């Protein structure tokens, strides 16, 4: 059905495979000999990792490797970066703490990955993950953003005093000041910005495959930006030079405002060295755990990642109650 002329309806071409169930989403990809990765995640909001004993897990049927932050560091895998750096109003750069793909030394949130189990089947990986013994030393945790920025709150990252990574503003301070002075009425408001949890209907997944013959990596990922993913994996995480790293974005089930932050899982797909032989490695939450894994690993919008983001604002209004100025207290 061809469409010509202004105003003609142009039918999408991709619908044919989507309505017949023949789409190629990342989890649909099946590489010969692929193995599966399952992440063990911290149940604690803030804790020191004292020891990780993976001997029992590594001996379980089908297990190929159990990797932790220690192996990541030994293999010199680079830390994850933030895709969008903000400059604070005083001109300083955003305070970025080092962020490895698997936690090393300390976990900073419930869901922080502490180990990844790689096995022949996902069930084997999950069964073995239950046998990984992590000895945590609990640390005080704070989940309220206002308290986290308050006096005496425990500092989570060395670089971020008062757990504040940036202070940003937008607007014309002088004009706003003048508008407030001239306003007939000024009132204080508590404005709530809810926490955002990105929820595309396709849970995130990644498959990494290493080809020894050409010493190159291929990564399938639920990304809408494969070129940036390749740049980051190459230049920052250091998996391979760009010409030896191919990132494929197959059909993707939405992005739904997942911010340009960090994605840990995909960095791990390209670690061939530790496996006994290079095998394609497939990572996604299994049918049962998928959505929970997705929530815990996706870097939620830092600007909004608060359970209850209550800000006190001052609002100025003129005689006819039109808003003339807005400023945080």
């Amino acid at each position: 059905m061809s469409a010509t002329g202004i105003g003609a309806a142009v039918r999408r071409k991709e619908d044919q495979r989507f309505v017949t169930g023949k789409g190629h989403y990342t989890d649909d990809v099946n590489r010969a000999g692929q193995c599966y990765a399952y992440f063990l995640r911290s149940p604690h909001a803030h804790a020191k990792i004292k020891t990780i004993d993976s001997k029992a897990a590594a001996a379980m049927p089908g297990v190929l490797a159990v990797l932790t932050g220690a192996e990541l560091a030994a293999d010199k895998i680079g830390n994850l970066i933030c895709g969008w750096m903000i400059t604070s109003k005083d001109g300083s750069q955003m305070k970025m703490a080092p962020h490895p793909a698997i936690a090393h030394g300390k976990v900073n949130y419930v869901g922080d990955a502490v180990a990844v189990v790689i096995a022949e089947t996902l069930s084997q990986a999950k069964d073995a993950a239950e046998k990984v013994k992590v000895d945590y030393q609990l640390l005080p945790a704070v989940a309220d953003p206002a308290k986290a920025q308050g006096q005496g709150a425990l500092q989570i990252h060395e670089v971020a005093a008062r757990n504040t990574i940036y202070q940003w503003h937008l607007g014309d301070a002088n004009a706003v000041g003048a508008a407030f002075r001239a306003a007939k009425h000024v009132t204080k408001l508590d404005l709530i910005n809810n926490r955002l949890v990105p929820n595309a209907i396709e849970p995130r997944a990644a498959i990494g495959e290493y080809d020894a013959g050409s010493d190159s990596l291929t990564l399938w990922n639920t990304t809408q930006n494969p070129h940036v993913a390749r740049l980051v994996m190459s230049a920052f995480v250091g998996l391979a030079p760009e010409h030896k790293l191919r990132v494929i974005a197959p059909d993707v089930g939405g992005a739904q405002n997942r911010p340009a932050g960090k994605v840990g899982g995909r960095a791990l797909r390209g670690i061939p060295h530790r496996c006994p032989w290079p095998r394609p490695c497939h990572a996604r939450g299994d049918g049962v755990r998928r959505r929970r894994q997705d929530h815990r690993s996706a870097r939620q919008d830092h600007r909004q990642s608060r359970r209850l983001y209550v800000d006190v604002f001052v609002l100025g209004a003129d005689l006819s109650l039109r808003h003339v100025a807005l400023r945080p207290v």
Partner: protein
Amino acid sequence: MSAVALTVNGKAVTGDVDPRTLLVQFLRENLRLTGTHVGCDTSQCGACVVHVNGKAVKACTVFVWQIEGANVTTIEGLANPNGPLHPMQEAFREHHGLQCGYCTPGMIMTAVDMVNRKGHDLDDPTIRHELEGNLCRCTGYHNIVKAIAAGAKAMAKGHAQHQT
């Protein structure tokens, strides 16, 4: 490991699987029928809907051994692979009832079951109520509802070769 035998899209299949294997895993991984999708871990999203013995079932909530001997139809089996689309599939395409396509197989399978139970003349409130078990993150549902209403009517025109 447990042995299972069932019929999927008209073909007899068997498997020897971990008893924890869900129907959706069996379809996707053992049979490589990847049209049925997993979008959640709470049985809420409906991306996994298939027909088991003629009824819509969420494949993520059933162990494959639980439906031993059953007749399963997935999105791949709705229409003949070399033939025209099923009227409901055609309606989704015609009415732009999809964007990323991830929820679409589940939506279509639910829609066909809806018509089987509620008939060919479906009004908006009925469709929306019957879609409670299916989530879409792209479309806002509006065109899905239109597609289902149109697909329901088109199914009445008697496309005998489709297995609904």
